[in-house]
């Protein structure tokens, strides 16, 4: 069986919508089926997937799960920089540049432009959207 290369685009926040959870479980299934994930791109409210929140014991900490998945399987987690900045989702460099108190983005995620979404479309057999 030939491995299929997937990329995922996530458009919704993890604590208010099902979409990120579905995307995360889909990614796990893809990898369990010995297929590949080229990139997960977070756009619009999906950028909140990169913010490590504080979860109660019953909730699934989706940002931490994404980070774990990325470390285990060397997956690129990219957060759209333009939509992230508007929502206060910043890495250390952007927090300094815009004089904000500190970084809000988990270090396993990278801020980058929409070109990375187009690149994912070009380098994957399938791009799946979650939560638009």
């Amino acid at each position, binding site marked *: 069986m030939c491995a299929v290369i997937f990329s995922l*685009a996530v*458009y919704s926040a993890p604590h208010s919508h099902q979409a990120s959870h579905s995307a995360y479980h889909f990614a796990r299934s893809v990898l369990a089926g010995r297929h590949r994930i080229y990139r997960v791109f977070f*756009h*619009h409210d999906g950028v909140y997937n990169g913010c490590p929140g504080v979860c109660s014991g019953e909730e699934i900490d989706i940002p931490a799960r994404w980070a774990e998945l990325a470390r285990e399987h060397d997956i690129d987690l990219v957060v759209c920089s*333009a*939509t992230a900045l508007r929502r206060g989702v910043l890495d250390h460099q952007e927090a300094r540049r815009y004089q904000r108190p500190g970084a809000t983005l988990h270090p396993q995620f990278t801020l980058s*432009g*929409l*070109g990375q*979404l*187009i*690149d994912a*479309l*070009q380098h994957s057999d399938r*791009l799946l*959207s979650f939560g*638009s």
Partner: protein
Amino acid sequence: MKSLLLLSRRPPWGSSLGRDGLDAALAGAALGLEVALLFLGDGVYQLLKHQQPPQSGPAGSARILPALPMYGIHTLYVDGASLKERALGPEDLALEAQVLELSQTRACLERYDGILAL
């Protein structure tokens, strides 16, 4: 991949999803892809004449649409059934878009190498 079709299904107000989708299309065009837009569902409202950008709330798409040709995006399609359901016709649209019937919409989806849906 040489061509990209953006499915724009969101209205220009109430949320920035419509606008964010158009931004993705612009990124595709900037990277040299042949980009076309297909407006369907509430996305057809983005094409309406006489729109006022919201005075407060998320930025709409009204300012981006007229700039599409500058980015090399010249092909706009609109789903005819979505127009009809909303009692709209081609004369209500601010930009020239090719009105597609159902079978043409299907053919259009097959013609492009990549599809982004928002």
